[in-house]
C-alpha cells in the first residue's frame, strides 16, 4: 500500500516553484483591480476630468473662441463684487431650503398615506410617480403655460369663480416667480422622496406597531417613537440626494423663467450657464460653478454624519 502510494508520487513531475506570475494570476486583488478599471475609467474621464478642467478654467480668463491665461483669483474677486452673483446665491439657498423642507414634509405624508390600506393602492402608488417620469423640460413647459401671464388656467379659473378680476402675473413679479419655480420643483421632487420613504416604511415590522399598541401608544406616539427613528437612516439618504438635486437644478428654471424677472429666479447653475455659454465668459462661468462646490460639500458632510450607522444599528444582524 505504502509502496504503491510512493511510486505514484515519484512518477509525477516534481512540483515547480510558483513564480510571481503564478501568484499574480490567482491573486484576487489583481483580478478585482481589472474589474474596477472600466468603471474608474468612466468616472475619471466623464467626472473627474471635467471637474478638474472646470476648476482650472475658473482661474483663467478663457472665453469662447479664445484660450485663456492664468489670472489667479481674479474671477472670484469679480464675483465677490457682483450683486447678481450674490442674488443667485441667495436664490439658490432659498430655493433649496424651502423646496427641500416642503418636499420632505409632503413626501413623508404621502408615503405614510400610501403605506395604509387604501383602495386602488397600486394605481395610486403608480400615479404618484408620474411627475418623476415626465421629462423635466416637458413638465416645465406645462408649468410655463399654467403660470403664463395671459393664458394661465389658474388665473382664468379664479376669474371665472369671481375671486379675482385680473390675471395674476405669476412669472413677471419677482416673488411670485420664485414661489412658482419652487412650486414646480416641489411637484417634480415629491415622488422621489415619497416612494423612497415608502420603501423605508415597508421595512418596519408590523409587529412593532402591535407591540406599541399594547404598550399603549396612540398613532402620533407610534409615529414619533417608532416610525420616525426607524426611518432616520433612509431620510438621511433621501434628503441628501434631494438637496443635491435641488441645489444644482437647472432645467426647470431655464425652461420656465431663464432666471428672470430681473434675475429674481437665477440660481447659481443658471447664472453660470448664462455667463459661460450665452455670454461666452467661460472663466467666469466656471468660477460660479466652482463656487457651488463648498455648498455641496457642506450638504454632503451633513448627510455623511446623518448616514453614520447609529448605535442601535450596530452589532449582529437581526436574524
Amino acid at each position, binding site marked *: 500500500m505504502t509502496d504503491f502510494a510512493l511510486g505514484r508520487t515519484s512518477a509525477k513531475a516534481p512540483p515547480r516553484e510558483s513564480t510571481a506570475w503564478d501568484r499574480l494570476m490567482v491573486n484576487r486583488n489583481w483580478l478585482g483591480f481589472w474589474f474596477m478599471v472600466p468603471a474608474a475609467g468612466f468616472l475619471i474621464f466623464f467626472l473627474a476630468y471635467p471637474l478638474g478642467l472646470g476648476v482650472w478654467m475658473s482661474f483663467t480668463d478663457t472665453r469662447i473662441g479664445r484660450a485663456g491665461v492664468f489670472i489667479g483669483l481674479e474671477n472670484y474677486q469679480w464675483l465677490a463684487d457682483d450683486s447678481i452673483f450674490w442674488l443667485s446665491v441667495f436664490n439658490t439657498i432659498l430655493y433649496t431650503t424651502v423646496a427641500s423642507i416642503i418636499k420632505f414634509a409632503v413626501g413623508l405624508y404621502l408615503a405614510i398615506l400610501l403605506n395604509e390600506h387604501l383602495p386602488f393602492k397600486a394605481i395610486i402608488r403608480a400615479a404618484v410617480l408620474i411627475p418623476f417620469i415626465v421629462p423635466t423640460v416637458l413638465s416645465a413647459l406645462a408649468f410655463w403655460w399654467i403660470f403664463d401671464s395671459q393664458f394661465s388656467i389658474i388665473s382664468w379659473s379664479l376669474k371665472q369663480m369671481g375671486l379675482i378680476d385680473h390675471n395674476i402675473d405669476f412669472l413677471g413679479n419677482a416673488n411670485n416667480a420664485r414661489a412658482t419655480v419652487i412650486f414646480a420643483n416641489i411637484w417634480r421632487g415629491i415622488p422621489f422622496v415619497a416612494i423612497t420613504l415608502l420603501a423605508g416604511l415597508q421595512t418596519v*415590522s408590523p*409587529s*412593532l406597531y*402591535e*407591540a*406599541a*399598541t*399594547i*404598550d*399603549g*401608544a396612540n398613532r402620533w*406616539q407610534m409615529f414619533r*417613537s*417608532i416610525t420616525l*427613528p*426607524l426611518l432616520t437612516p433612509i431620510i438621511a439618504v433621501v434628503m441628501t440626494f434631494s438637496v443635491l438635486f435641488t441645489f444644482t437644478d437647472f432645467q426647470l428654471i431655464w425652461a420656465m423663467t431663464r432666471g428672470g424677472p430681473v434675475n429674481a429666479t437665477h440660481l447659481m447653475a443658471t447664472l453660470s450657464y448664462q455667463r459661460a455659454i450665452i455670454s461666452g465668459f467661460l472663466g467666469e462661468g466656471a468660477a460660479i460653478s466652482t463656487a457651488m462646490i463648498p455648498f455641496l460639500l457642506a450638504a454632503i458632510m451633513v448627510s455623511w454624519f446623518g448616514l453614520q450607522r*447609529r*448605535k*442601535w*444599528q*450596530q*452589532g*449582529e*444582524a*437581526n*436574524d
Partner: protein
Amino acid sequence: MASVAIRDVRKAFGATHVIHGVNITINDGEFVVLVGPSGCGKSTLLRMIAGLENISGGEIRIGDRVVNNVPPKERDIAMVFQNYALYPHMTVAANMGFSLKLRKASKDEIDSRVNRAAEILGLQPLLGRYPRQLSGGQRQRVAMGRAIVRDPQVFLFDEPLSNLDAKLRVQMRTEIKELHQRLKTTTVYVTHDQIEAMTMADKIVVMHDGLVEQIGAPLELYDKPDNLFVAGFIGSPAMNFLKGNVKANGKLEFVGPSNTRLPLGKAPASSDGRPAVYGVRPEHFTIADDGAEAEIQVVEPTGSEIQVVAKLGGEDVIAVFRERHQFKPGEKIRLKPNPSLVHLFDAATGKRLTA
C-alpha cells in the same frame, strides 16, 4: 391578576370563518396553553384577547369586564411576540420602560420598575444594550421583561420559543414556568409544540380548525383523549391507530387489520362487531408470547430508549422500549399492547368509546 372568560367567540376574515364558537374559562393565576397545528386559530384567538383583532361574535371577559370594545392598552394585558418585536432603536431599559413612559410615569418610577423586572430576569448587565447586540435567548428575556414591567392582569405569549434553538428552548421553557410560579399572573400561551404544552401548562386547550377539541390538565389529555385528533396530537411519538371491529362475544377482543387479534380491557356495552379505531401509545407495547406478530422495519435507538417501526397486520406501528432489546430489521416480534391502557374510538365520529 384576573380570570379570562371566552364565551362562544367567533372570528371571520371577510367570508372566511376561522374560529367557530370557542368557550374557554381561564382561572385567576392559571397557566393555560392553547395548542394546535398551524391554522387552527390559536394565534388569532390570542390576538383577540389582546385586542389586536376584532371579535366577530361572542364575548371575551377579563376579570369582570367585557373587553370586546376595549382598546388593547386599556385591557391591562402584556404580550410577548414570536419575533419579540423589540424596538431596535431603543436600549433594553428603554424597551422595557416604553409603556410606562407612554403612561407618563415619573423617571424614578420607570427606573425602579425596570430594575425590578431586570433583576427577576437577570437582565441588569444588559440594560444599556440595543436589541441587535443581544443573543436570541436574551432578546426573549427582554421581551418578557417588557411584559413584566407593566405588571398586567394577564400575560399573553404567542409562540415565544419557536425562534430559539432546541437547547435554549428547553431552558427558556423552564424559566417561563418558574417565572409563572413566582409571579402567579394569569397566562395564556400559544404554541404548536405539544411538548411545550405538556410541560408548561396547568390546563391545555387543544384546538383544531377553529374549534376546541378538548380542554384539560396535561396528563388528563394524555391518559384520556376525547377524540382521535387529541389522541394523535398529544404524545410523541404519536399514538398508533389501527382500524377494525370490536368482538365482544366470548373473550373481549379487537379484530384489527388482517384479522390481527388485539387485547381489549373494556368496551361499551353491546358493541360487538362495532367498527372502531384502536389506539395504543408506542410506550404501551410489551414483547410477549401471546402478542400480535409484527415484522421490524426500522430500529432507532436514542440511548434512553429504543424506537421500533414495525408492520403489524400490514400497518406501520411505532413501539418504544426502555429495555435494550437487540432487534434487527426483518425480525419477527410479538407485540402486546397493555389492555388497560389502550384507547377505543368510534370509527365514524372519532369520539372516545371507552370511559
